[in-house]
Each structure stands twice: as C-alpha cells, then as structure tokens.
C-alpha cells in the first residue's frame, strides 16, 4: 500500500463506467511526483474509462482520487484541469477547425504565452511555423505531436495521455518518446500513459500496470528484464 | 351645526335614498363586449368611458322608463374566440337587455349567432367594411360609402389623377380599398397600383419600392390599426415620399402620437374633437368633468358608443318596453342628438352621417377642411328594412 501522501496522483478503490456498466473495478494506483506510469492492456479493458473517471467526465461509483494529497473525487473536469492536470484524449482531442495557435492558447492558462511557445519550440519546433494553420489540416502524426506539445505547454504537473501512439509511424513514436523523457527531465512532470504500444511504453515509463476487465491484473517496473513478457501475456493471444 | 349644513345633509341623504330606491327597483342592463385586450385594447378604455358617461347621464335623468341602467363590460380579446365567451357571459349569465358593441369584425361575426340565440337588440358602433346584416343589429358608424368620398373628391380637386392604394390584407383593408378603387375610377381617376401586406406586417419595403416606381399623385391607405398603420407612415416618410396621403384607418389619437411623421395626412371621419357644435362642446365638457386626468380622448369609436346608448334609451321609451320584438323596430325610427349631430339608423340598419375631411397639423391636431352633410350609407342591407 502506498505510504506516499504527496503522491502526484492517488487513486483508491475506484469503480466507474457507463449507464450501469461497471467498466473499471476497484482500481488502486498511485504515481509519485515525476514518475511515469504506463497503463497497458487490450481494448475494452477500461484503460480510457479510468482516465475519464479520474478527470471527472464519468461518475465515480466508488473510490476516491486525490492530486498531491488534495481530494478531487467530486470535482468537475474543468476544475480538475485547473489544478494542473493535462488530459490528452484518444479521439477528438483537438479543435480541428481552430488554428494550431488557438489550440495552444485554449490549453495554456498561464499569462505568459511566450513561455508556452518556448516549451513548444523545445519539443516540436516545426509547430511554430504552423501556428496559423488549421489543426485539422495537420497530418495524423503532426496532430499527435501538437497534442503532446499542447499538454506540455500548459505546464501541467500531471499528464493523463490516452494512446498517443495509436496508428503512428515508428519515427514519430520514437520522437514522442524522446520528448516525453526530456520533458520529465526538465520539469519533473508526472505522467500516466495509457498504451497498447508495448515497446514505447516500456521505453519511456518507470513502471507499468496492466488492466484486465477493468481490474489491475499485474504491475511492475519497466526496468525489470521480464517486464515485456509479463505484460505481453495479458496483451495478445 | 348650521341650518344650511343640516339642510344640505338632509337633501343629500334624500338623494341617497332616492338613489337606493332606484337601485332596488329592477334595472336595465346593457352589455358592452369590447377589446380590453388584443388589437382594440388601445381604444377600448375611451369606449368604456363614453358608455359610462351615457349611462350616468341617463340615470341622472331617472333612468329608462324609471329603471336604473347598469353596464356590464366584458373583454372580447379583439377576436372571435374571446367574443364568443364575452357574448355567452353577457347574454346567458348577466342576462343583459341589449348589447352595444365597438369591436373588430371578427368579434362581431362571432357574437352574432349568440345574439340570435339570445334574441336581444344589438347596436354595433365601430366603422367597418360594410354589408353586415342581422335582424337584431343596427350600426351607427360609417361604412366605405360614407368615408371614401370626401378624401377622393378632395384629391381630385387638388388635381390628383393617379392613385396608389395600400392596405393590410384583411376584411376591412380589402373592403375599404375595393370600394375606393371603384369610386376613384367612377370619378375619372386612375388606380396605378394597389398592394396588400400581411395584417401584422411591419416591413413595407417592397410596397414602398413599387410606390416610388410608379410615383402616383396620391396615396390612400387602409391598414390594420396600430402598428401596421404607424410603421407604414414612418417608413413612407423615411423613404421621402411626399405626395398627397390619405389615410382611411388612422384616428385622431394615433395621428397625434405619431408626431411629425403624421403631418399633412388627410383623414376623413364622422367625428373630430374640434367639431364646432354645442352638442360636441357640452359632450367634451361632460367627459372632462367626469374623468378629469384619466380621460381618454373621445374619438371616432367612442362617440358612436355614447350615441348608441342614448339611441337605445330612446327606442325603449318609444316601445314602452325592453322586449326585443318591440325595441328592435323602434331603433330604426328614433334619432338622437349627439356630438356628431343628429343620428338616425334609418337606412337599412345603417345611419346617414355628416362626414368631415381633416388634415393633421405639425402639432398633431387635426384641422377640419370641409364637411359633408348626411352622407348616405348606400345599399347595405336591402333584405332588412
């Protein structure tokens, strides 16, 4: 059991789901500040539901969620976000009809937008040339990079990222991995990455947890040599 | 206390007793269905005041056949459905002896079948498009035949050859302009256009565009009262159209409230406040005295109401009873001296009227240009005598 009261994210006995369907059951997780946790598992095992529940998009049937020791279980999404949580949804995470800049501005609440842009430059400089371009016209990979850049630019203390690698080219995935690590290096950002892309997950994460039918089936450290195999037996056929 | 004082008190109490004695004896009830709400609610108050004045004067002179006259006012919401409720209320619940009504045509039509069931005398006191006939009904206000001639004749004298007619698309608008057109052409004028806008129209852009296109010598309008009439005038002025402008639907009050925009409009009617007759002067004095600051300026619609109640009194006294069978024919034979002159509803249930042509001045007052004595209503209800 976690004794770290100041855990950046602390989820206790969380159950949630849609219209009577319990998708996430009694989940316990805690991430230390600056730690990166990869939540793995097959489709329909409740990974995305977990994030939505933490953000407050879905009703919590039981359990509690706290950030850095402060309770947020009953808060609405925008309140949670304002406490420094950056959420990157799997689908429809960008305003397609808005420009790159507008997408950034919406997320960035701190006054000095310049600093935010500097952060973007550090991670994905090409975006600075595309500020006036409509986000919808970016390629799939570019959109994912914009998503990453946006969540980092907000200076969020905790990032909840849902399958950022889905359908991406290896090169892009490597690039994202690099950005995530360097961001953690520089700002000590805590992250929860929901992933199906095992190599990526194990490359960037400190530790991992596998969700199976909405329950935490197994957890471990990314550094452990057999991590890959242990995860894999949950992952595929 | 002084003798005089006690004397006055005594007289006063006597008066009270007399009054109560009168009240105790059975009364004659006159029903007033009127548009307290809806389109007519603007003029309704003045109509009610005129009725109250008439009744006061009658009762002050001992009522009708010694019976006290009582008013029952009911809201007809200026429409058919409301009128049905109002007439049911007055005829079957309040059991009125007669109905004197200033209403929209729709309300009147909705009421008539109920009047037929109730079988009571009915006097309609609003000007209208004409040719509404019912065995129980009399009308003492003007119809197109009486209203149109003064304006058209005057415009002809001014050398107007081409006319443009604008109306709201409803019974009165169409009725008035249909007659106007006929009359103009009969008198050698030419109607270069006639346009009808929806009854609630507040945008006259298209119509005015046409007016400007044909640029007539004179315009004659007959819109629904209130908003449409006003918006038309305002937009007409705004569009910079400055030809002769006769308005068949505007009453003195509205004209006054329109201010500068109304200046120069020609209006014809059977009543204006500044008609210079003793009867009118004493009438105005009486309402002024009775209502003081609350007075709603008497007008084309309230004065006939006043006269109609007097006419009913005369008819009942002539018939010596309130029975409809006797009173209804009597209504055709009596005549009353009112602010509009001598009114007798002797022509097929309608009344020959003295009509006036007036023009609105800058200050909103109406100056009477000329008058036309006893203009005949023409063939309205040939089937009824």
């Amino acid at each position, binding site marked *: *059991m976690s004794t*770290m009261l100041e855990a950046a994210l602390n989820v206790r006995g969380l159950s949630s789901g849609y*219209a009577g*369907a319990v*998708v996430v059951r009694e989940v316990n*997780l805690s991430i230390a500040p600056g730690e990166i946790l990869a939540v793995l598992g097959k*489709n*329909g095992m409740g990974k995305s539901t977990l994030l939505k529940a933490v953000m407050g998009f879905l009703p919590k049937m039981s359990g509690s969620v706290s950030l850095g020791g402060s309770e947020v279980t009953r808060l609405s999404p925008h309140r949670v976000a304002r406490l420094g949580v950056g959420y990157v949804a799997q689908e429809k995470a960008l305003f397609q009809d808005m420009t790159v800049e507008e997408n950034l501005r919406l997320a960035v609440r701190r006054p000095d937008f310049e600093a935010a842009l500097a952060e973007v430059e550090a991670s994905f400089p090409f975006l600075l040339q595309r500020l006036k371009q409509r986000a919808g016209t970016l390629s799939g990979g570019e959109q994912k990079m914009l998503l990453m850049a946006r969540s980092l630019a907000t200076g969020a203390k905790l990032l909840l990222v849902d399958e950022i690698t*889905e*359908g991406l080219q*290896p090169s892009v*995935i*490597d690039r994202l*991995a690099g950005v995530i*690590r360097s961001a953690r290096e520089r700002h000590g950002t805590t992250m929860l990455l929901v992933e*199906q*892309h*095992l*190599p*990526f997950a194990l*490359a*960037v*994460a400190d*530790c991992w947890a596998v969700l199976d039918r909405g329950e935490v089936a197994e*957890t*471990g*450290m*990314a*550094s452990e040599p057999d*991590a*890959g195999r242990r995860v894999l037996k949950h992952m*595929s*056929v | 206390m002084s003798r005089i004082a006690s004397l006055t008190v005594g007289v006063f109490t006597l008066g009270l007793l007399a009054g109560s004695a009168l009240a105790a004896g059975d009364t004659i009830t006159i029903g007033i269905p009127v548009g307290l*709400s809806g389109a007519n609610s603007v003029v309704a108050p003045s109509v009610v005041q005129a009725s109250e004045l008439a009744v006061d004067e009658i009762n002050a002179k001992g009522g009708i056949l010694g019976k006290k006259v009582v008013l029952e006012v009911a*809201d007809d*919401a200026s*429409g*058919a*459905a409301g009128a*049905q*409720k*109002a007439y049911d*209320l007055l005829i*079957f*619940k309040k059991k009125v002896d007669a109905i004197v009504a200033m209403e929209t045509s*729709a309300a009147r*039509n*909705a009421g*008539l*079948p*109920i009047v037929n069931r109730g079988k009571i005398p009915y006097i309609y006191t609003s000007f209208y*498009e004409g040719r*509404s006939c*019912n065995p129980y009904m009399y009308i003492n206000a003007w119809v197109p035949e009486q209203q149109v001639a003064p304006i058209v004749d005057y415009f002809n004298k001014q050398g107007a050859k081409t006319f443009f007619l604008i109306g709201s*698309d*409803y*019974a*009165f608008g169409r009725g008035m302009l249909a007659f106007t057109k006929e009359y103009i052409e009969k008198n050698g004028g030419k109607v270069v256009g006639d346009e009808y806008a*929806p*009854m609630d129209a507040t945008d006259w852009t298209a119509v005015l565009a046409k007016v400007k296109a044909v640029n007539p010598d004179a315009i004659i309008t007959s819109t629904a009262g209130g908003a449409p009439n006003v918006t038309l005038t305002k937009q007409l002025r705004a569009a910079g159209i400055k030809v002769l402008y006769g308005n068949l639907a505007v009453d003195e009050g509205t004209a006054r409230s329109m201010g500068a925009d109304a200046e120069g409009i020609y209006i014809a009617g059977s009543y204006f406040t500044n008609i210079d007759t003793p009867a009118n002067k004493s009438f105005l004095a009486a309402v002024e005295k009775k209502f003081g600051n609350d007075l709603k300026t008497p007008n084309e619609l309230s004065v006939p109401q006043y006269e109609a109640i007097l006419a009913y009194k005369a008819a009942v006294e002539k018939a010596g009873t309130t029975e409809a069978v006797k009173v209804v024919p009597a209504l055709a034979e009596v005549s009353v001296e009112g602010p509009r002159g001598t009114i007798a509803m002797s022509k097929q249930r309608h009344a020959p009227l003295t009509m006036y042509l007036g023009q609105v001045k800058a200050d909103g007052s109406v100056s009477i240009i000329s008058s036309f004595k006893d203009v005949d209503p023409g063939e309205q209800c040939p089937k009824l005598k």
Partner: protein
Amino acid sequence: MTEARRLSLILLVALAALVAVAVGPFLLDTYSVNVLTRSLLYAAVALTVDLLWGFLGILTFGQSVFFACGAYAAGLVFTHMDFSGSNALVALGLGVGGALLTAAIVGWLAFWHGASALYASVITLVLPIVATQLLYSGGTFTGSSSGLSGFTSFDLSVEAWFWLAGSFLVVVTTLAFVFVKSDAGRLLVAIRENEQRCKYLGLDTSRLKIVVYLVCAVVAALAGYLYAGYAMVVAPELASFVFGTELVIWTALGGRGTLLGPVFGALIVDYESAQLSGSYPFVWQLIIGVVFVLVIVAFPRGLLPVVFDIPRRLLGWLRPRAARAAVTLSTLDLAETQGVEPGNGPALAVSGVAKRFGSLTVLDAIDFEARAGELVSLVGPNGAGKTTLMRCIADGAERSAGAIVVNGYDIGRKPPEACVALGVGRKFQMANVFETLTVAECLQIARARHARPSLWRRARDLPLPKAAMHVIATTGLDRQLATPAHLLSHGMKQALELSMVLALEPRVLLLDEPTAGLTKTERMQIGSILIDLTRKQGLCVLLVEHDLDFVREISSRVIVLHQGRIVLDGSVEDVVASELVKQVYAGSGHAGIAHETASPDRGSAEAVSSAKREMPV
C-alpha cells in the same frame, strides 16, 4: 386483472363519463353549457397534441390548422352552397380530406428518415403561419380577418350540441386511452424512447409516425367541423400559431403523456379564462404564462400526475401502478416461424465495401463471405473499422462503395428496417433497449414486425422463437419479465437486447462486443448461447470481440481488421500464430514484441527508469 376485466373497466369509466355529459345541461346554467360545448371540442384537439407530443415525442404547434380545416370546410360550404343534409356530408368530406392531405404533406416533410425532432417541430410551427396567411388573403371567399358567419347550420338546441361535443370527446378519449394502453400503442412510447432501436427491430418508424399524425389530424378536423356547426362562425385565429401553442400549454399543464391531463387542462383553463379574463384580461394571461413556465421547468410531467401523487404519498390508498404485463412466454413452434428463407449461396457476402468520411477512409476493399452456421469473429485494435463494417451491413445507406448480399438479396441502399426484413439482426455495443419499458414489453416490441400488435388488446402470452427463449431461459430473464429495463443489470440488458434481436428470427446476426463489461460467468453464458445459435440454429453470426480467449473458445473463423483493411482471414490458430497480428496488437508497425528486441530508445529508457519504487496493487 384479466384483459376482459381491464377493458370493461375502461368501458365502465367511459359510460360514467357519458352519463355525466348527459346530465350536464340539466345541472349547469345555459352560460356554462355554451362555454363548455366549445371547451369540450378544444379538449379533443388537445388530446391529439398529447398523442403526438406526450406519447410519440413530436412537439407540435400546428394542430390548430387541422381544427380550422374541419371548421372552414363547414363554414365555406354552408356559406357558399347553403346548408343541406348532403352539403353537410360534402363539408365533412372536404374537412377530413383537407386535413389528411395537409397532414400527409407535413408528414412527408417532417418525418423523413433521419429528420430531427426539432425539425419536425419547426415544420409544425411554419404550418399555422402559412395557413393563417392563406385565410387572410382569401378575401370574400374565406372572409379574411372577419372569418365567415351568418351561415345556417344544423338546427340543434344548445343542449344537443353539448351532448354531441361531450360524447365526441368521451369516445375519442376512450379510444385513445385503449389504444395507448394496447400493444400497438406501446410502439409510440418505444419510438419516443429509442427510435434507432425501433428501426433496427424492423419497424418503419417514419411510416408509423405519419399514420398517427394523419389520425390525429382527422380527429382535430372532426372537432373543428362540430365547432363550426355549433358556433356558426369560423375565423382565421382558429388556425393560428397562438391557438396552436395554447393547445400545447393546456397539454403541458394537464400533463403530457396522460391523455386525461390535457383533456382536463383544456376544459379547466378554457372555462376559467372565460370567467376571469373578462375581469383582468392581462393579469390572467400573465398568470397562465407564469404557471406554464413553472410547470415546464419544475413539473415536466404536468399537474395531473402531481395531483394524483399527493394522496398516493399521503395515504397510499391509491395503490401504485399495478405491476405491468403479466405476460407468459412460450416457444413459437417451427410452423409459425416467419424468418426469411435462407437464400441460396452464402448467408452474407461482402464485396469491395468501403466507407469514407470526406477524405478519411475508414474501410477499404473489404471482401468476405460467411455461410449459415458459421461464427465469424472480427478482431482488431481500436479504429480498425469493425463497428463501421457492422453498420454498413445493417444499413444500406452507410457504405461508400461495394455491395452487400444477405441471403442472396442485395441490400442496395435500403434503410435499417428493410435490412432487418432481409434477415439482418444487429445488437449494438452499448446495450440498446427501451429503458422505461418492461422486459416483456421490450420483447413484444421486438416481435411486432412478425406478430402484428393489437390496436386495443394486450396480448397475454408472447410466443418467441426458440433461440430467443434459450437466451431468456439461460440468463434467467424470464424471472424479470415485469421489471423495467433500466433496472436491469448491465449483463441482463445485454442479454435482453440479444433476445430482442433473436426475436426477429434473423439469418445473419451482428454482435458488437456482446461481452463488454460482463462478468466471467455472464461471458460464458453468452458464449455457449452463441455456439448453440450457430451449430444448432444454423445462424450466421458476425462477432466483434476484443477478448481473443473468448474468441478462441467459440469461433470457427477469425477476420483481423487493421486500419480499415482485412489483414488476415483464417482459423483461430492461424491468427494466434501470425506475427502480423502480434504486431497489430503489441504495437502498430513496430517489429518485435518482447522489449529486448524493442525500439533503440530502450537503452536511454533504462537510464531514466530509476530504482525500486513501490507499486500498490
């Protein structure tokens, strides 16, 4: 309570109401009789508003037009052709015919496949505006603003008219009541609740809506016809938007979806307004406005239910609504099964199917066939296009290219309900049932396509095809027949939806993640059922499933979709063996699964992945 008792009870109440109508004129003064005669007719129109809005979910502002239609037919005929027995019939015919025609046009406009509820309301809002304008421009023919009056009509006493209007209202209300409580009537609620599900149960909801709309139009027209005959006057305001909304207001105040509420709402408000509006015209309308807003916001069910609830709460003497539907299930014997005959060739043939959203291609060049008795599993990561493919098979309008043949019939561009008729049955991912209806009612609606529901009776027994019965029995749904669906557990809902789809007697069954969010035992049940369906019943099942263990247990054949294309079509073993599939699952594009062989970032990753840290479980 037996069906006969139920109906005779309704009949008894109706008779009581008729008696009340009969004695009315003797107890009421002439004035009230006069006013109420009209109110009774208005109430009949309010009733139609309730049928459309309260039950079918169509908020209509235009019922006034149909009322006016009947009224003007009488007014016009009696004015321009004089009154006579035959002309009275002509007028009646014109009124009803006119109403039907108008309603048909409006229906065609408003209830087309996929029209939104808002759009339907908009059309009913435009209707009275147009109608009133036409009446105004009718000149002397329609009497314009003055309307028509002074025409002669049926020579009846005021009392007779009261009786006529009263019995008309009672009869209409009774019929409506019997109808909405009947099996057919329940369809209205079903459509309001979940129109999509209805379509996928093979019901042509657009047609149903139009039919109900037509009937309501006729009732309103009849009321209008009586009105004109009684009042001997017709005016444009009868058709107006204002009267239209007044009807809605009465319905809302009385209580939408209660039938009696709107009737009393109309009677009381209209009668009272006759009394009070005279004294304080504006205040009265103000009060109505305030109460209306209050009811809409605070008591959307209207006042009648509130009034009934108070004593129920206080004393509990009005026993709560008797547990609905004492329906007994039975197995449909094979003779009566009406499923489509298995056509020659494969049960399902998909060729060159593609689906594009603008430039984005979700499905491309999908080709496969499936035989009867075959259970084909569709697997693949998110966004592979599995659900989209299901949709394309169940709705002809969905796909962008290619052809789909079911039982030898090309589905062409047919809407869902027509595809169902060809033998397609679709179960959605999220359990998709009629939340407020009971299990039994849901099942009855699922059978409606085969067993035409009665317009006045409630079926007491419900024969279901063997497959459906099997599901119900194994899951124990039969013990919860009277339970409203929204009270069921997620698993039970899934089972209910499955049995509803099976009640359609489909040949091709499309199942989208039927086990999502189910417990292990529930999944096992579903699994065995599916096996039974394919092996014994010879259905062709197409199953979207993420749980490959589950797939392995039940499936004879697996199709792997990835990024809109079929990457593999073979046996479970093929799939398990396939490197490609492993890649598809373990990480799009990347070679290697175990992290030893994983991305070059690995090394640096070790650098950042610090020493032991507690991971709570």
